[in-house]
């Protein structure tokens, strides 16, 4: 029986126990959530580029972005059959809102309500990308208006409820003292302790790190790697990926016209182009003979940023890309978007059942301990039984213990352990450190070797106690993989 099924059964029992109380509806919602797409919240400090990244992931410019502080209301973007926007006010019934869209982002008419009176907005939008995950855009923390930052806190760390998100993409511009505090608040307490299992760090606006130099992304990658190995960061996120958000958004929504404009810049002499691109102001004013109107220049700057224009023009000039499709692909690659999508796939989507069960069990645990009811104790016991015995949860627990530095050993052994239990991704080939195209025989042989290796470690009396326990979990992971491979 799958983890999801077992979770569903416990939930069903809980619904019986709480039938007729005000909590029934909430439990039904938790159960239904198991069949919905994974919920991924995008959080971070203000102006970290949350809405921009959301647009890049959706592949459409849905969320409004602005130079000032922009997102003030928690906004859900989910897949659906029709286009609609629903506002959930803090008081009173939900209501549908009118919206318009010409060219750019959705412009929502709040119908006279003040943003602070609206609890959240739900945007339903037919989209392939949103079918895999429902994305939640949050207002930034560290915002000058207290009200706005409190909203992000409420969403991710509510005092009385389970968190509405199953996983979180945490955008950091460069590690800031406030960041960790926030991420910590998102961590739950019971199912699996301080928990780097449901959070990925994104070093956003990565092009800014080198202030737009063409080699900025290389710098950003180096920093992301260092951050990902920092003990304090490891405790809270699984990994850190650098992304130049604006460029990513533009790459996946690139138009022929824009490529045409870039070509004009690429046609300049390298020296002239350097002079032109020295500063944003210069780009808007110099070289009138370029053949771009000031409106066009402004639009280009807004879409690409100085870094994007420098990079795009260089790629075209050097012939690395010549068509819009090629340029789009190249820019998406270089902006770090592809890497982020891969990481999301292996760390979140492949493990979506575990993450969703986890959210549901958390909610159930909170309820049974908070609201006494005949039969609630049995439910609590079953939740604990499930959490303690399900192998995926054991993997998560070992993973977070390793990340927290509680399980220690030789660095290569610990790295091997992390990978085997799914720390870099749940797919078999990732766990075994093989390429995606490895054949079944190859996989089986490697899995067999890993099993032997971890059995030896588990039984070796010299192995530290904590590592030996973790090794037993790794053995179980290897056995699971071999069983899966045998079935194919």
């Amino acid at each position, binding site marked *: 029986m799958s983890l999801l099924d077992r979770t569903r059964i416990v939930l069903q029992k809980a619904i019986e126990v709480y039938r007729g109380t005000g909590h029934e509806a909430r439990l039904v919602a938790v159960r239904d959530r198991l069949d919905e797409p994974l919920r991924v919240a995008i959080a971070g400090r203000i102006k970290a580029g949350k809405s921009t990244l959301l647009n890049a992931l959706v592949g459409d410019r849905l969320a409004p972005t602005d130079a000032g502080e922009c997102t003030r209301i928690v906004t859900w973007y989910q897949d659906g059959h029709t286009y609609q926007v629903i506002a959930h006010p803090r008081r009173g019934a939900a209501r549908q809102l009118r919206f318009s869209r010409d060219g750019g982002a959705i412009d929502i008419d709040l119908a006279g309500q003040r943003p602070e009176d609206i609890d959240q907005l739900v945007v339903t939008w037919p989209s392939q990308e949103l079918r895999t995950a429902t994305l939640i855009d949050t207002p930034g923390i560290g915002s000058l208006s207290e009200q706005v930052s409190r909203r992000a806190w409420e969403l991710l760390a509510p005092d009385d409820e389970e968190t509405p998100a199953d996983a979180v993409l945490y955008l950091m511009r460069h590690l800031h003292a406030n960041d960790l505090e926030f991420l910590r608040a998102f961590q739950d307490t019971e199912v699996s302790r*301080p928990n780097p299992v449901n959070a990925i760090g994104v070093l956003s606006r990565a092009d800014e790190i080198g202030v737009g130099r063409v080699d900025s992304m290389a710098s950003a990658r180096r920093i992301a790697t260092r951050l990902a190995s920092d003990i304090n960061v490891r405790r809270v996120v699984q990994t850190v990926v650098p992304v130049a958000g604006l460029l990513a958004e533009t790459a996946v929504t690139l138009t022929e016209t824009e490529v045409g404009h870039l070509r004009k810049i690429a046609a300049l002499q390298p020296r002239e182009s350097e002079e032109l691109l020295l500063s944003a102001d210069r780009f808007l004013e110099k070289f009138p003979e370029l053949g771009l109107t000031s409106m066009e220049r402004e639009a280009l*700057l807004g879409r690409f940023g100085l870094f994007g224009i420098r990079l795009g023009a260089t790629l075209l000039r050097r012939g690395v890309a010549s068509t819009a499709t090629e340029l789009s692909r190249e820019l998406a690659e270089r902006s770090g978007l592809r890497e982020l999508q891969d990481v999301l796939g292996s760390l979140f989507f492949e493990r979506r059942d575990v993450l969703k069960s986890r959210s549901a069990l958390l909610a159930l645990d909170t309820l049974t301990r908070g609201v006494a009811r005949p039969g609630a104790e049995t439910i609590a016991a079953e939740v604990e*039984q499930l959490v303690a015995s399900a192998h995926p949860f054991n993997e998560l627990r070992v993973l977070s213990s390793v990340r927290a530095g509680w399980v220690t050993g030789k660095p290569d052994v610990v790295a091997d352990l992390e990978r085997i239990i799914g720390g870099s991704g749940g797919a078999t080939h990732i766990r075994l450190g093989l390429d995606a195209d490895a054949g079944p025989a190859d996989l089986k042989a490697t899995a067999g070797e890993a099993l032997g290796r971890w059995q030896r470690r588990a039984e070796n009396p010299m192995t530290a106690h904590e590592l030996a326990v973790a090794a037993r979990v790794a053995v179980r992971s290897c056995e699971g993989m071999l069983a899966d491979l045998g079935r194919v």
Partner: protein
Amino acid sequence: MDDANALVDLGLRACEAYDRPDLARRLTVTKRGLADPGIHLVVAGEFKQGKSSLVNALLGATVCPVDDDVATAVPTYVRHGAEPRADLLFDGDPVRREPVALEDVRQYIVENGRQRIAGVEIRIPRQLLANGLIVVDTPGVGGLGSAHAAASLAAISMADAVLFVTDASQELTRSELDFLRQAYQLCGAAVCVLTKFDFYPAWRKIKELNERHLRAAGLNVPLIAVSSPLRARAVKGGDAAMNTESGFGDLVKFVTERVGGGAAARLAADAASEVAAVCDHIASQFEAEKAALADPAAARRVIDELTAAKARVEGLKTAAARWNQTLNDGIADLNSDVDHDLRDRIRKVIAEADDAIERVDPADTWPQMESWLQSRIGYELLANYAQLRQQAAELSERVSEHFREASGEVFDQLAVFNPAPLVTRTRVEHKIELEKMKAGKQAMVALKSAYGGALMFTMLGSLMGVMLGPIGIGIGLVMGHKGLREEKKRQQTQRRSQAKNAMRRYCDEVNFVMGKDSRDTLRRIQRQLRDHYSGLAEELNRSNAQALQAATDAAKRTQAERDQRLRDLGAELDRLRALKQRALAVPA
């Protein structure tokens, strides 16, 4: 500044002509101060805002290492020097220096430097620095809550001006504004610099938003937008138009006029008052001689008078002098006040921390706990230090008051017994104008040399890492089994007591280090004040002795000699009076 220099030179010549090496010593110190006034311009802001790039662009030289990732970890003092050179600064009294090759400086300044140093001093031949400006590049504050923010504020409290750096990527955050507000209270001459405008197309909007935030916060701080890469390019290519475009024209103007100019005017005024005081000293001996010469009958009285004054002046030099007692008692009181305040503050932190630990599980929250504790302690230390600073200034004022009263009596007495109207008139001019010596200044000078804010950086640095020790994590957490919750609770209790112990050890350590440091600082202040006023007493003594000598000699002269000498004296006094007038003309 040149005027002040010329004035001091004239004063020095007078000291030489009238054989007063003691007064010359004082003026030599003043002259050195004028040549190298040490005007501190502190560059502060959150990290990765382009502070080091700004310093480099401002000076038109690569002095501070710039890197995409690693940040400045120790304060860097950039000042003028004929030859480029670099020194590592180590904590101590006086600060220990160790020369280092300029190209190796980088490894000491950036994070994870190999040695623990208090700072790096770099000297370069730059026109902008020639007037004694010292640009201090500080480690980023990393959020208001961080320990480094407290250290930066400590540095700012000693600064003559502050450049607060924020980049054009986003409007000022709450923590930045809070920091700026505190910095502004500590040092009124502040400017907010908006960097990287070349890279952010929306910088004008950000600038406007920031101006609005500053206004709303009631901060009268100008905002200047700059681009370091443009400036660097402009300096390299000698491109004046691009220099204007980079926005550095305005910044340089602010630095030279408001920062350099303001400090220079203050220094010139101080120097002028020193020269005026020296004139008074020298004139006092001539006045006495003149009184004795003008009326031989009065000569005896003048001599008696000066002899009486001699005893008093000598009394001023002894430990029993009232100012000296005030100083000794004051320092002792201050020591116990500051110590008590520190203990009290730390006790409160401990209570708060205990409370916080009770509410969480240290296994989850220790890193935050640690940084919280450090920053909390940092701010308490800053507040404690602010108290020390304020009370030391008050004490210095009291000492100066008592010294002035005592020395004033000496000279008043001298004047009362002078019968000649000529001499009576001099009574007013006779008093050495100690009032002009700004009270409190001495204590600040001592604090500045002793403290300089650098201490906070090293202090917090050396106390980083509140060791929790290995955390007891039972295997129950690694391998799930039933009864998890009870086991967890037991372990949690254990971890909590472990955390409380670690926190207490840290606080004890802070108490110890900081207590020692403030005792040392106070001792330095005491020594400086004592030396200063003993020196003044010695000068008075010498002036009195010379006056006595001259008056005694006058009694032995013939009438012809007297007339001749009187004419000479008149001329000398006129010259001194003219010099004094010139010194007094310098606006204070």
